């Protein structure tokens, strides 16, 4: 659905008609096609890579970096070339209109597990042609079965154990086994220099390097991928000219000639126009997604990177706002043509068909001055009017963000666009500086994947290296290192929790479990990191990460200016709530003993309704209650400290993150009942959001709770969902109110925020299941009340009201 195209200023009056940004017929059609195209598995990349490596086996002495460069080059030179009707920007990620590839040399075998059921599974079905499935089974699978990354990372028995564990992860999921990706390429340099300049630089450096050195091989690989990328563009130029020769419509013929002209120039040469800039980035984006895992290659601050080209085009009359808007739309549609091919198991952790291609707008320049520009506005309009699956849009806000930009962002969010996610520069930038990132680089940050802030174009921070299950460690602490109902000890052999005389003593047990699990995680992840360096170097990625080319070191070898790994603690709120409930019910009110609480958890509260209710009604994180919030803070600090001081194979630190993708659900399904009153198998809260419905004092109190957390330890980012019932944003003041809520929360110290406007369905669920959403605040009239506090009739009335037009 494409919303109406008339722009309205926050005060409700139509904007200057010059500013009317319209979703053109072309854009609408392209968007619809991609929206409705079947999602298909594409075997092309896997087959080409496999074919290359089979042949390369004849040259055992060839360095892996050389092979990797040649493999990518082979893919780029042999990929199907397709230009779709009406397209202005060209290049396809896969051989299908909408699809995803496989990475058999990395995690691809795990995905092949689902080969027989991709089409029929109920969540995220993916079409697979019989021919492609057969090719994967016959050509691809047998070759990599004994060669994929994890198998090479560790001794055989350990690798098998690890692989099996990762098929059904309990303690953690190590994503880096699928390659690193997760970075913001230096597209600014790509547009300023072109691949030819990179190639020349690599050549010059190689000329003076020892011939058989790793550095020489690295520079050679860079040259190879540059040439292949140029050939890729040339193939598109050729295709455009072929199509033009048989195109009946003169208008489209002219467009195809334009496409050919653009592809002749970029990415080889510096981009001279806005359109060339976008096309150059698109080619590189495609190639990067073919080189390593097609996940979270994040274009970054496109409003900044494209700004000089845009301004120049506007000044010379080559471009107007409407055309720029259309081109940006074409770019967004292109990024939406890529989908991740994940097995059901992985989908549980990384659900939602999400490629993490982040585009960031707004924020400051390297000096700290506001850098919001007209392109930022164009992007915000695009988020609202062309609600594509990708990119993942973020907006940076800081003290000096222009009020009209804040207003515009609030306006689109109030309308339910759900994009952009919002970032508080005042917190994020100091966090990056504390990580050892130069202030100027920190101010030029962009986000990767979900929420992870990095110095754009200069970092190789493996931001989604692993997801860690914090509440499992809590369960083990309560049960002497065993999961409830299990006989086998999987954690540390800690003393019985029942003997603890305070929540502090219990926290010590939790720490012991946490340390043990983290130690194991780090041991395994380092093996994976070394394997990535040895078997999966990425020359193109490295070329686009500042530091690597100068040093002659691949990014996986630690060549980047900034190195590190991000490990996500999932379920910190759940653990904190558990401690808060124990503190209240056991140690303060003495309404139950710790032994009783543990026993109740062990039997999943069966027959313990009263105790469970007491635990659930105990103070919870998210209500601006320092005691409850303090426990969550302790859990976060403990996790970050446990990671601190360890160095990864690339020479960077392990940084804690507190976002959860969909792992809060997947991990939650594995963990037994916990003292927060959460029953067995229920999901945890997402990121650092309070447990669902447990923020009973409204959004301001919730934001104060979040702001009270030690967000400085969330160096790899955190996500917070702010669910707002539509009435809070209804009426003419709605956007202003949201703007004030965001500004107030950011001033208080909230780092990140994603706004959701709740609909009627939730009210119906809340009506049918009282107690499930106790914090659901509803507008009655003149004041608000909790939905659960209303009479059945009143609830019905409110549900019926949601049909009425907003603002009445």
């Amino acid at each position, binding site marked *: 659905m494409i919303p109406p195209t008339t722009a309205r200023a926050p005060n409700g009056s139509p904007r200057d008609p010059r500013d009317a940004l319209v979703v053109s017929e072309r854009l609408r059609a392209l968007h619809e096609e991609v929206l409705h195209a079947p999602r298909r598995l594409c075997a092309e990349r896997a087959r080409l890579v496999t074919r290359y490596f089979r042949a390369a086996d004849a040259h055992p002495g060839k360095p892996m970096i050389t092979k990797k460069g040649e493999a990518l080059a082979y893919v780029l030179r042999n990929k199907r070339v397709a230009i779709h009707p009406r397209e202005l920007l060209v290049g396809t990620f896969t051989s299908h209109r909408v699809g995803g590839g496989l990475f058999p040399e990395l995690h691809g075998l795990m995905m092949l597990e689902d080969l027989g059921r991709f089409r029929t599974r109920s969540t995220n079905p993916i079409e697979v042609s019989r021919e492609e499935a057969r090719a994967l089974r016959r050509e691809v699978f047998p070759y990599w079965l004994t060669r994929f990354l994890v198998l090479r990372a560790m001794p055989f028995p350990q690798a098998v154990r690890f692989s099996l564990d990762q098929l059904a992860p309990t303690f953690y999921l190590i994503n880096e086994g699928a390659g690193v990706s997760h970075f913001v390429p230096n597209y600014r340099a790509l547009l300023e220099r072109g691949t030819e300049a990179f190639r020349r630089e690599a050549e010059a450096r190689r000329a003076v390097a020892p011939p058989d050195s790793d550095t020489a091989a690295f520079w050679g690989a860079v040259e190879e991928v540059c040439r292949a990328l140029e050939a890729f563009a040339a193939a598109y130029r050729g295709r455009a000219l072929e199509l033009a020769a048989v195109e009946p419509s003169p208008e489209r013929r002219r467009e195809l000639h334009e496409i050919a002209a653009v592809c002749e120039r970029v990415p080889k040469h510096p981009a001279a126009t806005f359109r060339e800039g976008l096309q150059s980035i698109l080619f590189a984006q495609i190639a990067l997604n073919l080189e390593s895992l097609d996940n979270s290659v994040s274009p970054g601050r496109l409003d900044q990177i494209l700004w000089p080209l845009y301004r120049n085009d506007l000044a010379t009359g080559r471009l107007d706002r409407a055309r720029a808007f259309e081109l940006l739309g074409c770019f967004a549609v292109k990024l939406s043509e890529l989908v991740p091919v994940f097995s059901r198991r992985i989908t549980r952790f990384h659900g939602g068909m999400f490629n993490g291609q982040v585009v960031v707008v707004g924020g400051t320049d390297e000096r700290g001055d506001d850098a919001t520009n007209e392109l930022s506005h164009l992007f915000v309009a695009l988020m609202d009017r062309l609600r594509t699956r990708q990119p993942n849009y973020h907006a940076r806000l800081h003290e000096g963000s222009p009020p009209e930009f804040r207003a515009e962002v609030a306006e689109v969010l109030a309308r339910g666009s759900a994009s952009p996610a919002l970032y508080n520069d005042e917190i994020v930038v100091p966090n990056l500086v504390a990580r050892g990132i130069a202030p100027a680089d920190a101010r030029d940050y962009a986000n990767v994947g979900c929420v992870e802030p990095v110095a754009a174009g200069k970092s190789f921070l493996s931001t989604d290296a692993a997801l860690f299950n914090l509440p499992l460690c809590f369960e083990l602490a309560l049960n002497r290192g065993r999961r409830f109902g299990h006989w086998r000890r999987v954690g540390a052999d800690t003393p019985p929790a029942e003997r603890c005389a305070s929540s502090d003593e219990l926290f010590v047990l939790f720490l012991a479990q946490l340390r043990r699990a983290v130690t194991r995680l780090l041991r395994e992840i380092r093996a994976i990191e070394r394997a990535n360096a040895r078997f999966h170097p990425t020359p193109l990625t490295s070329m686009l990460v500042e530091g690597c080319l100068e040093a002659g070191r691949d990014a996986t070898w630690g060549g980047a200016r900034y190195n590190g790994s991000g490990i996500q603690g999932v379920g910190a709120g759940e653990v904190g709530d558990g401690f808060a409930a124990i503190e209240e019910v056991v140690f303060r009110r003495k*309404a139950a003993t710790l032994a009783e609480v543990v026993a109740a958890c062990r039997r999943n509260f069966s027959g313990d309704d009263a105790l469970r209710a007491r635990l659930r009604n105990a103070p919870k994180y998210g209500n601006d209650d320092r005691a409850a919030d303090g426990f969550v803070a302790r859990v976060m600090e403990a996790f970050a400290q446990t990671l601190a001081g360890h160095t990864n194979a690339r020479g960077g630190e392990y940084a804690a993150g507190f976002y959860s993708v969909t792992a809060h659900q997947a991990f939650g399904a594995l963990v037994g009942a916990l003292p927060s009153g959460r029953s067995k198998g229920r999901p945890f809260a997402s990121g650092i959001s309070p447990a669902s419905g447990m923020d009973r004092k409204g959004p*301001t*109190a919730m934001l104060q709770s979040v702001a009270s957390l030690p967000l400085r330890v969330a160096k790899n980012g955190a996500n917070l969902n702010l669910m707002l019932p539509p009435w809070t944003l209804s009426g003419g003041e709605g956007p202003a*109110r949201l703007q004030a809520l965001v*500004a*107030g929360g950011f001033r208080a110290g909230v780092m990140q925020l994603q706004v959701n406007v709740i609909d009627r369905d939730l009210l119906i669920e809340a009506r049918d299941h009282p107690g499930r959403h106790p914090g659901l605040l509803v507008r009655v009239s*003149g004041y608000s009340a909790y939905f659960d506090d209303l*009479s059945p*009739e009143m609830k019905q009335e409110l549900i019926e009201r949601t049909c009425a037009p907003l603002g009445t």
Partner: protein
Amino acid sequence: MRPPDSATIFDVQRFSLHDGPGIRTTVFFKGCPLRCAWCQNPESLGPHPEMAFFADRCRDTRACAAACPRDAVSARGDRIRRDRCDACGACEPACPHRALERVGREVPLDALLAEILRDRSFYESSGGGVTLSGGEPTFQMSAMGALAQRCRSEGVPVLLQTCGAFRFDAFAPHLRSFDRIFFDLKLMDPERHRRFTRADNPVILENARLLTASGAPVTFRMPIVPGITDDLDNLSAAAAFLREIGASSLHLLRYHRMGEAKLARLGYPLAPLAMGAGDVGRAVARAAALLAECGIEVAV
């Protein structure tokens, strides 16, 4: 006399969006001199704490009965014997399901101020502040005044919602603490006012006059309760009165049935008024048109 250091409060609601401009915290004072038939906050009426019982939360654990020192829980466990209950609150923590809540607590002004200040960043970003509501804040005049003054000196804008039934000379010293006063008019006819609110209106109308004359930032409001306040006589009398005292606008409040669920919880004698949401909407629209004809600016 030393200003009091605490107030009897029955709720503090953060993120209030409809009690004045911006994002606000609303402090509900307990106790009210009026007994309006349509009262939406019946738990606010009595000056002292009382127990509310949420029948829908009760799981019949009988924990309340065991905890009650005065045997004020009836045999079926679903009702509080109001004649025995002194709202000591012993049953509240005893119930695991929160079916009993003590409505009204003595809160030190320091604590109240601290809670109000927590959302300061949101008041600043939204042009909001604190709203003193109730019940009737002026029913605890000196506590109200002290709180308002302290908020004010912290730079938090203060708004008062009042029914207007107070002694003007007691109120006058606090006048400057308020950035705005929402003053509710209800029924103009003294007889009907007494009948539906069990209080006299001359003092209310006199206060309205005095406040307006003093130049205080007053907004007059009137709840539209179909069949009670929305008749032609009442509305035209209100319009005439407003013009006479030099006020030109009236803010209409929709009656809603929120209070009715609370009646049962508190065992209050006020009878529910039977009417649908549609009636209220129509009544408000009609009243707005009528007042506009009388030359009054109307906001809904």
